[in-house]
């Protein structure tokens, strides 16, 4: 695997070369800053398979560099591991929102570094396999239109929605939260109670578009730097936030449903698409829970999965006056 490591500290770069070499990752190129890194990325004949970026660098910091790499040709899904001595939640949140896949704290542990880079290698293999069957949006659309071949239980990676992380990155984020940040975290899960009906009546592209619309609605109602969310599959979205900064409303499900109502969603046959949402109670990380445990997510997901559909309002199309401009998601980028 071809790795680009970027840090303004020459000692860190030397240590990374040795640590990666010792764990079987010998093809490492180094850069001492964001500009040099971008030059190397542009010039290389064989693209890099993984990036290790220091967050705090003079000039272009690692978060900005991460965002620019994500927008560069061929690196939308390349693993980006942030390397940082800063465990402050704001930095970590910003890094994930800029597209980071994972992060490693400095001083780094050799075995942990090796393990996380190996996980990135595995991710690359999965992405390569997915891309082999569908290289462009158009190809994907052609392949999927009319064929609901998605797995309803699988996480879906939605692009360009504020606060949304792919599920793998989301799990990495939770697992890496440090003790203080973890204990001040809360999670809630939202379940689309009628997900099976939506799945059955949509082709794969429309189904992803509906999820993307719902993600937009969640994002609109949970704005804040410390609030991140993901789609776990089976109609379940999970939201994690810092209760020191954010207060998630107990009626979030209704607020989201109202937002969706305004969207006027329709099925491919243009009949109105209703969205029913159930919400778990708020789950707080307990003082005796292990930092980085996924138990917080799991308990929220388990609770919402067992809930019956709510008697609450449904998100329905307005009785008259469809606004077909709301079908914006046909143009949205998405990954499956």
């Amino acid at each position, binding site marked *: 695997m071809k790795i680009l490591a970027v840090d303004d500290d020459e000692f860190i770069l030397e*240590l990374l070369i040795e*640590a990666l*070499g010792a764990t079987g990752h010998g093809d490492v190129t180094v850069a001492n800053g964001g500009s040099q890194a971008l030059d190397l990325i542009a010039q290389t004949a064989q693209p890099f398979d993984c990036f290790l970026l220091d967050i*705090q660098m003079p000039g272009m910091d690692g978060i900005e560099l991460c965002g620019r790499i994500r927008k560069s040709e061929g690196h939308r899904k390349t693993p980006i591991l942030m390397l940082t001595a800063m465990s402050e939640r704001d930095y970590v949140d910003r890094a994930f929102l800029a597209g980071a896949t994972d992060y490693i704290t400095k001083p780094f542990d050799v075995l942990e570094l090796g393990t996380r880079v190996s996980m990135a290698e595995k991710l690359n293999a999965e992405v390569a396999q997915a891309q082999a069957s569908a290289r462009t949006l158009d190809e994907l659309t052609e392949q999927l239109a009319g064929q609901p071949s998605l797995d309803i239980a699988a996480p879906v990676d939605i692009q360009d929605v504020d606060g949304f992380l792919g599920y793998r990155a989301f799990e990495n984020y939770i697992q890496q939260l440090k003790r203080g940040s973890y204990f001040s975290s809360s999670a809630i899960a939202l379940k689309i109670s009628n997900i099976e009906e939506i799945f059955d009546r949509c082709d794969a592209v429309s189904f992803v578009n509906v999820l993307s619309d719902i993600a937009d609605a969640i994002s609109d109602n949970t704005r804040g730097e410390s609030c991140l969310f993901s789609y776990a599959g089976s109609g379940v979205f999970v939201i994690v936030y810092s209760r020191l900064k954010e207060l998630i409303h107990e009626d979030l499900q209704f607020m989201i449903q109202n937002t969706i109502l305004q969207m006027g969603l329709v099925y491919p046959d243009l009949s109105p698409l209703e969205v029913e949402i159930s919400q778990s109670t708020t789950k707080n990380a307990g003082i005796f829970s292990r930092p980085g445990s996924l138990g917080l997510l799991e308990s929220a997901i388990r609770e919402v999965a067992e809930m019956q559909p709510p008697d609450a309002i449904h998100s329905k199309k307005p009785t008259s006056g469809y606004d077909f401009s709301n079908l914006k998601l046909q143009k949205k980028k998405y990954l499956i």
Partner: protein
Amino acid sequence: MQAEDKFKDRIGGIKKRFISALDTRAREFEGLLSRIVRNEDAAQALEELRIGVHKIRGVAPTLGLPKLGELATETEQDINSMLAGDDPQTAAAKFLKSLDVLLNELKATAQQP
């Protein structure tokens, strides 16, 4: 050979160079402290000091110098308190104390054979 053992075998040279640079690093920090105390572009000097201390925090423990890493972490936290404007007198006193301890450790480590 296990990865950790391989790594330890390989970093001897890096550690030696890191330690040999610590005396210079300590003098740089003293120069920055002097600028801060004399209020000569103090904000810039404090930021430069924070970056230098931050780098030691990130590297020293991986090279088998955990105490240096801990002291650098403490000093960086005190600098951050200064930059955040927390109770200036208390923050300044804590910062001066932690930096003094760090400087002593830098010089002591630099004398290691």
